[in-house]
């Protein structure tokens, strides 16, 4: 098939709302929940795609930011739920149940940690970069497990979903609309980014770092900026994911989750605008459908992934447009 990529992107972005609207009309609330899950995972993958697809940074530790976003929501809502203010040194912060505030904290905290991790990790490259990000992920995972103040391995349950002004977030279709709107904004941001001077310089920093340097720009600083933005977006997705489940736990930090985020991107098509969205939708559909068919569904998921890597390097978008994506 040789469809223009613009069409594929538009169709992919329309897919999730269409499914959700159909489910709403047919009174199938669980399908809306699935679509919401796909939208949130897609948002996390859009975040990773900024680092991986455009910046060429293969991070096997993006679960760190997903988890930080989740715990930002968990901790703030926990303190609001128990009416016990959060005390950090001289600072006293009352918890909150307001999503915009939680999102602000989640993105800021993820961005800060991404800046720190990026600063240290970007001293390395290639496989060393993959491994050092994995190491930071493991550190965060073990820290969260041992952090008994917020439930350790058991995690934290939040009884009611947090609120957003003007919406009833407990109604599945309304929460979906909110998540989907955030996703569309993130995709738009990614689109603008690629066309901007920063995006072009970043693309060049991936392909020919020496030339970028010759042009007076620092490839490392460009990559660091991309990594921070990437972490912040993934953190925001983490906060939404926690609100979808009304629960956070250390499994949000697990290295398998970092691996799955990469899977989403490659499934859809690396570096493509719509890649993460298609990948996430496909992953959630496979998980639901194969998981219902057989206890050993992971074998089939593995086989499908292998097939894509070996025979369809451009992922789904590559198949549809007939062109392999940019090489990372």
């Amino acid at each position: 098939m040789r469809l223009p990529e613009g069409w594929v992107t538009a169709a992919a972005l329309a897919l999730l709302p269409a499914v959700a609207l159909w489910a709403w009309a047919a009174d199938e609330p669980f399908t809306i929940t699935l679509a919401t899950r796909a939208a949130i995972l897609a948002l996390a993958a859009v975040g990773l795609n900024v680092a991986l697809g455009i910046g060429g940074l293969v991070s096997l530790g993006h679960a760190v930011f997903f988890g930080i976003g989740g715990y930002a929501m968990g901790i703030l809502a926990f303190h609001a739920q128990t009416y016990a203010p959060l005390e950090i040194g001289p600072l006293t912060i009352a918890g909150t149940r307001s999503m915009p505030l939680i999102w602000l904290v989640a993105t800021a905290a993820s961005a800060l940690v991404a800046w720190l991790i990026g600063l240290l990790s970007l001293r390395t490259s290639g496989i060393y970069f993959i491994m050092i990000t994995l190491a930071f992920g493991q550190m965060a995972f073990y820290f969260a497990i041992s952090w008994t103040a917020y439930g350790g391995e058991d995690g934290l349950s939040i009884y009611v979903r947090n609120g957003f002004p003007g919406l009833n977030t407990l109604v599945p279709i309304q929460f979906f609309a909110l998540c989907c709107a955030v996703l569309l904004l993130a995709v738009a941001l990614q689109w603008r980014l690629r066309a901007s001077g920063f995006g072009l310089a970043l693309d060049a920093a991936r392909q020919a770092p020496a030339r970028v340097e010759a042009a007076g720009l620092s490839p490392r600083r460009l990559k660091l900026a991309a990594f921070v933005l990437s972490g912040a977006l993934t953190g925001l997705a983490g906060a939404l994911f926690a609100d979808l489940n009304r629960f956070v736990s250390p499994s949000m930090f697990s290295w398998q989750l970092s691996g799955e985020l990469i899977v989403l991107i490659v499934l859809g098509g690396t570096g493509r605008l719509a890649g993460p969205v298609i990948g996430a939708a496909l992953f959630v559909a496979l998980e639901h459908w194969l998981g219902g068919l057989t206890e050993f569904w992971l074998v089939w998921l593995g086989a499908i992934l292998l097939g894509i890597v070996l025979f369809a390097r451009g992922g789904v978008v590559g198949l549809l447009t007939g062109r392999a994506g940019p090489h990372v």
Partner: protein
Amino acid sequence: MTPILLIEQVLNGLQFGVMLFLMAAGLTLIFGVMGLINLAHGSLYMIGAFAAAAVAGATGSFALGLAAALAAAAAAGALVEVAVIRRLYRAAHLDQVLATFALILIFSEGTRWAFGSFPLFLDIPAALSGPVTLPGGIEYPRYRLALIGAGLAVAVGLWWLTTRTRLGLRIRAGAEDREMVAALGVDIRTLYTVVFALGAALAGLAGALVGAIQSVQVGMGEPVLILAFVVIVIGGIGSIRGAFVGALLVGLTDTLGGLLLPDLLALFMENGAATQAGSALASMSVYLLMAAVLIWRPAGLFGRPA
């Protein structure tokens, strides 16, 4: 803390380290020669343990179990290399990570399908069971001493193989310049399959040896795999010497960290809290070590800068 306890823990750290070396040696060899990141190396470790448990269970012989572990892991390695890995040598790191991640899923759930969901049993051979008394009155399990010995023997064997044999010469040459070696008439495809099977066999051996004192179950390979990656990154990817030093460092840090950190923290804080904080810090210590090494030397201790 008594000196005897400390010595015993150092031995434990060494034993853990040499077992990590068996895993890490294969990983680093495969990366060094073929430039491949193999996340599925932990699955080969698991295959070794399952093969050993199945054969030892059926025949009652630990030695046959070990032989089966080597054979099964090497065969699985060769099969995977020919069917899948061979197509990935020129691919991006990203594709390698993804394809071998897919292999983990297939191997883990496939093993569960074949052997069921309950752990298997593999016992220490009778000749090596029980403790021995070392000089200084330290009682130490005989089997763990044997593991240290086996690990060191493999290390020496690998050194000999890579520096003193024709195969080793080809491996080193293949890592340097693939086209040149092929032009000299070496069958590079076979060489790669052999190297991959060798790495797989080492992982299978580690799985079988460790399986006798641990639980043989699906998913046993992943924690070890991640530590083995930490080892080769600390040592410098592609360097067998680095893998050896890195393995011992990681083994000792992990073992002694768990012992010393709670006591160390107890100097500053209340006892129960120190125990918990100490264990938490100890579980992160290996990764802290790795981050520190990479920040100090971005290509690892013995790696060549990119």
